[in-house]
């Protein structure tokens, strides 16, 4: 029926020390994953202000992936624990205000987990396809 299948756009905020390197590894190991993701590199998941996640959603991104080091492995000791609190707060706020908070994913993926990174993107693309496009896409009056 549909002339072209909906291709979700995902903005990914990835920690330099783990998930970003994991994404790199997926690439160099030629592990296939869908091309729906635009990556922004951070020095730590704890450096991500929720303003950027909110902005991405308000501008119509279909999903936001936040990737950090596994608990206990943060290069700066505790950045990922702080990130987890911020994401918990953000999701609660989004949910309460009528957004679909499940468009925001927080995942711990290490530098050696190229496979996990590829699987995560594949899984996220499928989940977002099931949801359909972000209703805010094209909203001019936000």
């Amino acid at each position: 029926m549909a002339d072209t299948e909906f291709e979700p756009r995902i903005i990914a905020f990835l920690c330099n020390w783990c998930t970003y390197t994991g994404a790199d590894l997926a690439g160099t190991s030629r592990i296939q994953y869908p091309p729906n993701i635009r990556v922004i590199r951070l020095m730590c998941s704890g450096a991500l202000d929720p303003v950027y996640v909110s902005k991405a959603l308000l501008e119509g991104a279909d999903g936001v992936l936040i990737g950090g080091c596994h608990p206990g492995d943060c290069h700066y000791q505790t950045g990922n624990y702080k990130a987890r609190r911020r994401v918990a707060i953000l999701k609660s706020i989004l949910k309460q205000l009528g957004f679909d908070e499940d468009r925001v994913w927080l995942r711990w993926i290490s530098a050696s987990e190229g496979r996990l990174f590829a699987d995560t993107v594949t899984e996220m693309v499928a989940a977002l396809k099931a949801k359909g496009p972000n209703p805010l896409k094209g909203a001019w009056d936000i």
Partner: protein
Amino acid sequence: MVHSVLKTDGNPSEAIHLLLRRLLDEGIVDALLVPLRVASGDNTVQTLVRDTRRLEGMDVLAPVMPVTTARLVSAITMTGIKERVGVVMRDCEIRAVVELVKLQQAKADNLLIIGMDCMGTYEVPDYADLMRSGADVGGALLAHAASGQPQPHEDKAFRTACQMCEKFTPSHGDLRIHLFGDDPKQHIHVEVADDLAAKLGLEPAAPAQARENVVAAITRQRTETRDRLFASFRERTKDIVGLQAYLSTCIRCHNCMVNCPICYCKECIFRTPIFDHESEKYQMWAARKGAVRLPTDTLLFHITRLNHMVTSCVGCGMCDSACPSHLPIAILFRAVGQEVQALFDYVPGRSLDEPPPVATFREDELEGVQ
């Protein structure tokens, strides 16, 4: 803390003023931050007083809060002071001070907090109207203290934040002035730190008998109002279209942020170059979406402010009072805050010992957040 009684001989506000004056006279404090009537008589503003002769126009019962005293306390203590300052505050202001101390925006070391039972406050223009009409604005409320049903003047209402405020008795303070449950024409009760009681020569006494029931009744009624307002807010903002409608008249002036005691950031992200865009960008956005509302980022502003500070929102309603569009921002922040704060079992202003949720973490928590 000990309870004590102040005889009022028909003039409760005078009795309180004499007590406060003694703090200065006895050298217990070097300065007082207290509400003083301005010369024109139609406003009452917090004033830092060192000379007792300046206490002339003191009016601690004035039901008005032009700015939150928490901001003033931050200003006068932030970089440290040697002087000891007694500060008269309502509980929303006290709770905001507690948050600011924990956020390292105020220092409590040299503060002597004087908490007052709060009967509710008017918006500044309403208060000014009443004062110009010659009404005894504070006294009229005090007459209802015993029954615990402070009624606003006919044709005026208390601020919405006050109508839904269920924490209106002093939760902290070296000196706590109780108004509810007494006949203030005869006496009022105070609760006072032990050493201070001795210095002020206050004799221990039993607390006002009726107080507990009176406070409980007001709390119940305010909580009902709160829950009703939260429910209608939640109904209105079920989806993003509803949220947009809720905020449709926002002009993104930032007044709500500027007047919020918790929004202390000198370099708020909305005032940094991050939001100074290249002129061409606007054309790009308009081209991409077909059109773009200006100024941009109204929802982003509110959502970001929520993310940054709602864990510490004390419900003072300064955001409402500052809004030129009369938007019910405090309901939004309190309602959203209720659920976010519950995630961390955090109550803003409850204790100096609990770090604010955004300033700490636990390793074994929120494992389901992903």
